[in-house]
């Protein structure tokens, strides 16, 4: 059985799929299983691929569904690091509620979003979040779960959930500022 061109193209997508899966399934083996399932499903279902949609977009849609299924099935059994995140973002503000260190301009968003390395940094930053935060955040933002389902799977109260999402976004912002935008602006102090 020789590999078809499609099989080769799919294989080339494996690293991209893996990083996507690892956002949700931190157990390396689970993530690899989900990706394997996805690649098989893509090969078997290639008739469903019109060729008009970008291959990557199509395969990621399949993976997304696989991840959603897995979370619905096993979500509650997945080990979860329950470390409490006591970080307070109050320190960003003075007593009168003003920014102590006002946010800086991050430059042209299109330029940022078109750089592949930016997504590497984004991934590093989300992986650095406390696990519950990361799970809640990516279930919501990347997989499109509704709030009540996320609360059920992760065992959260509603207020808990909003706090987690808030913290996730604030930490991502800090992390990007440090690991991406900090470096970007260094060279052009006088711009």
């Amino acid at each position, binding site marked *: 059985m020789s590999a078809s061109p499609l099989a080769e193209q799919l*294989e*080339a*997508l*494996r*690293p*991209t799929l*893996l*990083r*996507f899966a*690892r956002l949700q399934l*931190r*157990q*390396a083996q689970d993530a690899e299983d989900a990706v394997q399932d996805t690649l098989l499903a893509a090969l078997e279902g290639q008739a469903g691929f019109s060729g008009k949609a*970008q*291959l*990557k977009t199509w395969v*990621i849609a399949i993976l997304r569904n696989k991840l959603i299924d897995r979370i619905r099935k096993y979500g509650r059994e997945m080990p979860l690091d329950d470390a409490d995140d006591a970080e307070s973002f*109050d320190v*960003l*503000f003075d007593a*009168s*509620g*003003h*920014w102590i260190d*006002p*946010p*800086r*301009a*991050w430059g042209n*968003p299109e330029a*940022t*979003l*078109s*750089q*592949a390395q*930016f*997504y*590497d940094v*984004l*991934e*590093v930053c989300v*992986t650095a979040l406390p696990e519950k935060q990361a799970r809640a955040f990516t279930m*919501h*933002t*990347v997989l499109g779960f509704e*709030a009540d389902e996320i609360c059920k799977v992760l065992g959260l109260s509603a207020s808990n959930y*909003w706090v987690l*999402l*808030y913290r996730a*976004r*604030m930490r*991502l*912002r800090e992390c*990007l*500022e440090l690991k991406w935008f900090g470096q970007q602006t260094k060279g052009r102090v006088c711009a």
Partner: protein
Amino acid sequence: MKTCREIHQLVVLGADRELAWRERLAIRLHLLVCAACRRFEAQMHLIEMAWKQFPGPQGQEQRAGQAAQSAATANSSAPHGPQP
């Protein structure tokens, strides 16, 4: 007039749920006069856009392809991310 601390909370909340018109109005009025919160809002917007496009732009495919090729002989090693 709400403070920057209150506005930043509303801005973050607004990414995840529908805000009341009062809240939206409060944000708008504040952003008119506060450059720092405008930049904060732009930062949050960028993060939102980035996740919509994750894992990256079209060019990523070639990059992933190259990574796959170079990893083909040792495909058990993870190209990205910290491993437990």
